């Protein structure tokens, strides 16, 4: 197969190129050919709570591992936090299939731009690009299949971590301290409001993120707490000057044990 004209066209967007050459590989959400009809007959799984917060020198993103269909659990091992590129992270809530497709497309979009242009996009450029992708799936969001991401990364020019939240219309908002989205977000945000403070270090930020997810799971049936029996922990990622790192399971297990131990102590001591 020789390379046809679109391969030699201008532009550095993977999405625009794929639309021209192979629209069938893209999710319908991104091709403006969203199907009409209702999803009530066969509701897709929904991914629930994710949180993000900054600390001195970086940011932490975390997501619980539950996906639900109505009142049933569709998955207890779904992942909602991913690297967007070497120095940024994306977390997603909403319709699981579309959310994971959004992550995949966003990852390729950033890498594609970097390779075509020879330089990575600025953090603001990445954040705006994600807003455009979310806006592209607005049609499905209106049918109840919404996807809402949180994006964060290390801004090399500012020398600081930055977090961006989105709405279903692609609106992009910068968050200075912390943010949570998904079904348990109200409870997670309440928890973060009490636990977050300036000057936290990375381990404290990881513990705060996990505590927020535990609090969300306490009150929201669609959010899972740490599953000690099966050793399934939330996915927690740190992004700092050195880039994206997933926090390893043994560290998470220890942090979860500490949080549970502290809370148990409080309960025993209270009159």
């Amino acid at each position, binding site marked *: *197969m020789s390379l046809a004209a679109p391969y030699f066209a201008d532009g550095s967007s*993977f999405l625009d190129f794929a639309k021209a050459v192979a629209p069938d590989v893209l999710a319908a959400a991104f091709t403006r050919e969203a199907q009409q009809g209702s999803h009530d007959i066969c509701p897709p799984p929904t991914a629930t709570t994710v949180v993000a917060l900054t600390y001195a020198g970086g940011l932490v993103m975390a997501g619980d591992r539950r996906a639900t269909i109505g009142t049933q659990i569709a998955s207890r091992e779904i992942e909602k936090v991913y690297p967007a590129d070497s120095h940024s992270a994306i977390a997603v809530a909403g319709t699981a299939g579309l959310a994971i497709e959004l992550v995949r497309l966003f990852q390729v979009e950033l890498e594609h731009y970097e390779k*075509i242009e020879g330089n990575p996009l600025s953090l603001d450029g990445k954040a705006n690009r994600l807003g455009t992708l979310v806006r592209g799936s607005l049609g499905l969001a209106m049918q109840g299949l919404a996807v809402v991401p949180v994006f964060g990364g290390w801004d090399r020019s500012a020398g600081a971590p930055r977090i961006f939240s989105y709405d279903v219309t692609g609106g992009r908002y910068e968050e200075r301290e912390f943010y949570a989205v998904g079904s348990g977000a109200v409870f997670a945000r309440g928890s973060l409001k009490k636990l977050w403070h300036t000057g936290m270090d990375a381990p404290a930020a990881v513990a705060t993120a996990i505590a927020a997810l535990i609090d969300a799971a306490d009150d929201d049936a669609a959010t899972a707490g740490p599953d000690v029996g099966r050793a399934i922990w939330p996915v927690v990622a740190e992004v700092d000057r050195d880039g994206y790192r997933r926090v390893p399971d043994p560290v998470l297990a220890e942090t979860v044990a500490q949080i549970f131990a502290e809370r148990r102590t409080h309960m025993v001591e209270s009159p």
Partner: protein
Amino acid sequence: MTIPFYVSPEQLTKDRSDFARAGVARGRAVVVLSAAEGMVLATVNPSRSLHKIAELYDRIAFAGVGKYNEFEALRRAGVRYADLRGYAYDRVDVDARGLAGAYAETLGEVFTGHPKPFEVELALAEVGDVPGADRVFRIGFDGSVQDGEALVVIGGHASEVTAGLHAAGVHAAPDSAPPPLATALRAIANTLVPAPDFANDDAAAPGTSRSLAPESGAYSTLECALLDRTATRRSFRRLTSSQMVELAVE
């Protein structure tokens, strides 16, 4: 009545080949070399922003010589081919062989069907888990493809540069073990850097081995990249001249 102007296919092909070959020969050679730590791609390039060596995919690098706008267009097309394939199937399903085929067909069509053939020569390097699994494809302006393993040189004075690297002890024997990265970088600097003086000074022709201290600034004119064998995902890494000096120390 005018007699239709007839040119035999042999003559047409020869004229086009001579034209394209002359364009390619004006480009400085690019070396693709297997080393123990990964694959090294290097060329003399005074520009810091107009690259001849670039990342295509996780374990695949691109090198082009000849007309910049032509190989740059082919590079972008290759990135698009690789990214689309990796997105539609899986990242492991992108390989240099498929890319080489797409390039060969494209260049072949341009060679016969367009007013002017592309004046380019390309190399695709794919790093393996072990040195024996490294692959290099060399694609000519007419769409011809050759595959190599340990050492491929494209562009002007390719055979002299190859001889120079062999003389420096790099892949001198067909089954020789890959050199350490430090040795490979020193051999490349020694062989490529005299090339600018070639036209004026026969004594400094590429391939002439000479003793060149790596500290002498030889690396500052080189564009160099490494496909890191141990990388888990994207293995392409550009090497600055100071990194090259550091890595070239044994």
